């Protein structure tokens, strides 16, 4: 049986929708929401599959940083995933008042996205998927630009330019654009009000998961591709 090279998932088991899960977030509420069953566990990638409103959905933890995230996007895209929502963490600026940040663009201070496209290429989420994600959170998320970096510790935030810093969004948006698939992200700050001792509360992550599943399964694949 053919398996994805790094992810270990049988290629026949890959559906059209995937949630990419930051391993810093508890996976239980995300997996439980789709009554997920274990699919594979290889390297840092732990995968479950389940259902949402009659649609098959995959959840996969993606390790730390953009390199393993890009590998997951590539291998899943090759096997049939057409839309991704990243449920991630970020370090929010103090002026972000909402529990969640919905990036409408990413500053590309990472190494991974640079290997996909020159820095002039904008790192943007899919507009339709982002809008559906906004609706699915009931308007509770702030919009903002996130700066994607490769090292969080010790790096001062560029004042005024970004609402948050993270380790993945730019690579997700650029790799997804390069491969012609939909992608968006919803971030939470593990040092913010939604977390206790650095662990984001299960209820909050569960709400994020529901928003991800509702938005993913509501889009028409290809609907926001201008050249389609």
């Amino acid at each position, binding site marked *: 049986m053919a398996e994805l090279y790094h992810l270990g998932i049988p290629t026949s088991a890959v559906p059209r929708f995937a949630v990419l899960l930051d391993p810093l977030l508890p996976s239980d509420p995300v997996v439980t929401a789709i009554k997920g069953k274990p699919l594979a566990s*290889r390297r840092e990638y732990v995968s479950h599959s389940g259902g949402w409103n009659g649609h098959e959905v995959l959840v996969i933890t993606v390790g730390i*940083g953009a390199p393993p995230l890009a590998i997951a996007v590539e291998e899943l895209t090759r096997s049939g995933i057409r839309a991704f929502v990243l449920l991630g963490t970020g370090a929010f600026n103090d002026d972000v008042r909402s529990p969640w940040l919905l990036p409408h663009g990413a500053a590309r201070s990472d190494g991974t996205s640079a*290997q996909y496209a020159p820095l002039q290429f904008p790192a943007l989420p899919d507009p339709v998927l982002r809008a559906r994600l906004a609706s699915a959170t009931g308007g509770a998320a702030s919009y903002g630009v996130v700066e994607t970096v490769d090292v969080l510790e010790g790096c001062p935030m560029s004042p005024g330019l970004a609402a948050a810093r993270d380790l993945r969004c730019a690579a997700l948006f650029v790799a997804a654009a390069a491969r012609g698939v939909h992608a968006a992200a919803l971030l939470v700050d593990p040092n913010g009000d939604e977390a206790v001792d650095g662990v984001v509360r299960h209820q909050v992550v569960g709400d994020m998961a529901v928003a991800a599943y509702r938005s993913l399964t509501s889009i028409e694949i290809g609907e926001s591709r201008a050249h389609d």
Partner: protein
Amino acid sequence: MTSGSSASSDAPKGSLGRQYHIKVAPGEIGGVALMPGDPFRVQLIADKLQDPVEVAHAREYRTVVGSYKGMQVTAMSTGIGCPSAAIAVEELARCGVHTFIRVGSTAALQAEIEVGDLVVNTGTFRNDGTSLAYAPLGYPAVPDTELTTALTLVARETAQSLGVRMHVGINVSDDAFYAEGPEWLGRMTALGLLNVEMESSAVFTIARLRGLRAGMICGVSGNLVTGAAEYGAEENPRLATSWEHSIDVALEAAHRLESAA
């Protein structure tokens, strides 16, 4: 991801408590660490140690301690890529590790290097983003000289006695496994680089900046000039054998250095 930012506020640099990502505390591990990328390959190292004990397993970081010829050894996976490898080195350093040996998988960039060969690297072309957050590109990513010499000598002995091939030279670290186009790979081959992997740029750079020892020995998983091979022990027994060899070489090289010290 991390929330290393959160980490930085909770556990500032130099903090000696239980580390934020790897969940290891000072006193729980020794000074010599072998680091594969894949958490499942930590077991290959554990199987070669006396009295192996799992200290922690958080995210992509699985940590086992044991002993080799009386030397305490830590085996911890780094996960894929420089961002997570950098966190591994930083947090292990805070727990007392002074010698880091990456025992990795790598793809060859020169036609004559075959699957299952061993490669000891003497420097890394920095095509990653992480090391750039630490030092400008003019700063060289070089491993520790003594450690690299020991790895080379032991690898040569192993190669001769077991009839396997080994190579010594410069590699490149990359951030995007699937964005390595033929043009870019051709440039790397033309520059004489032996192999591409995804972690040594950060490991070498950070260890240098922190005054610590780092080195690397890899098993070759495929050849990007002549055509790739499959990953995994079943699909690729020559790769699996080279993992074993690379671990044996790393353990013996570390033991010689520590004995000489």
